[in-house]
C-alpha cells in the first residue's frame, strides 16, 4: 500500500532497543491492543515504512512511519503467567513507542 505522503519516515529505534507501548488516546480506530498498552518490550525487527493505521483508516494524509515488531515477555503482559521464557510479538508504528533509558530519541 502506498501513500502520497512524502515525508522522511520517522525511525527512532533499532533492533534490541527497549521501548514501552504508549497508553495514549485515539479516535474511533486503533490497531494497538489494550493489553499491550503501557507494557515494556524489545524491538525485534524493523518491518516497513507506511502510514499508521489510525490515519490510513480515515484516508488521512498522515506521516509515513517505521513499523516495528516488538517482543514482550508474557510475564510482563500477564503477571500470573507461569512460564518465564514464553514471549509474544506484535507490531507497532513509531508514534506508539516510547523509548526506555538505553535509546536515544
Amino acid at each position, binding site marked *: *500500500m502506498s501513500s502520497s505522503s512524502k515525508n522522511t519516515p520517522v525511525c527512532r529505534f533499532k533492533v534490541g532497543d527497549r521501548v514501552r507501548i504508549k497508553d495514549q488516546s485515539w479516535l474511533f480506530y486503533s*490497531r*494497538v*491492543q489494550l*493489553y499491550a498498552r503501557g507494557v515494556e518490550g524489545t524491538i525485534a*525487527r524493523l*518491518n*516497513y515504512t*507506511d502510514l499508521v*493505521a489510525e490515519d490510513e483508516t480515515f484516508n488521512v494524509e498522515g506521516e509515513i512511519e517505521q*513499523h516495528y*515488531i516488538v*517482543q514482550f515477555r*508474557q510475564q510482563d*503482559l*500477564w503477571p500470573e*503467567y507461569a*512460564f518465564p*521464557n*514464553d*514471549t*509474544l*510479538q*506484535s*507490531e*507497532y*508504528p513509531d508514534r506508539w513507542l516510547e523509548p526506555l533509558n538505553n535509546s536515544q530519541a
Partner: protein
Amino acid sequence: MTTATGGHDHGHIHPPAPQVEEISDYSVLEIALRELAIEHGLFTAEEHLHFTEWAEKIGPASGSRLVAKAWLDPEFKKLCLTDANAASKAVGVDWLDPTGAGTPSDYTHFVVLEDTPTLHHVIVCTLCSCYPRPMLGNSPYWYRSTNYRRRLVRWPRPVLSEFGLIVPPEVEVRVEDSNQKCRFMVMPMRPEGTDGWTEDQLAEIVTRDCMIGVASPKPGRTADKHPIHKARHPVGHEPKPMGVAE
C-alpha cells in the same frame, strides 16, 4: 421428548424449525459494500464472481510446498527467512498478483517464522482475523473465533494442548499477534523419521495447522483432524426430573 416429525402425542404437531441461519451484521455490510462498489463501477459483478471463485479455492498447498522446499534446501530456507515474498514466488505465489493491490491478502508484508528445538511459534490476530491467505487460503473458522483469539495470547499452552499439542516447558512458546500489515506463517521443524523423503512426501505432512502453529508435522499425519468430544448431556436425552414416572 419430541421425535423427528415433531409429533408427540398431545394432540397437535409442532412445525419444523425454520432452516434459515441468522445472517450476521458483517454479511449485511459486505453485501451492501459490494453492491455499492458494483453500482459505482469499481468492478463488475462478473469480475467479483471471478475473483471470489479464484480466492475461495486457494488452499494451504503453497505453504506446504514452501516448507518442504526449505527443509531440503538450506539456501531456499535462508530466502524464506530473509525475503519471504521472494521465496513465495518459487512456489507460484506472487503476493501482488493478480490485482496489483495485494489481494486476497489485505497487506503484503509476508514473514516466515522459523521453529527451532527451543522455540515454537503460533499465530493469531486478536483484533480481527489477519491470515496469510495467498499462502494458506482462507482461515479455518476457529482461527476467526473470539475464543481462540482472546485465549491464545493469554493462555497459549492450554489452548495448544486443546489441539493436542503439548509444548515442553523448556521450549519457548512465542505468540505472534498480527495486528498491523505483516502476515505470518510458521515454518515447523522437520520431524524425525523423514530421512530420504521427497519434496512431495514432505509437503504432505506440512498441514495448515502446522503452519498456524497449533500442530507439529509427523510422518503419517496428513490431515488436520480435531478430536470430536461427544456431548455428555446431548440434546433430546435430558434426564427426567426427579419423581417422574417411566
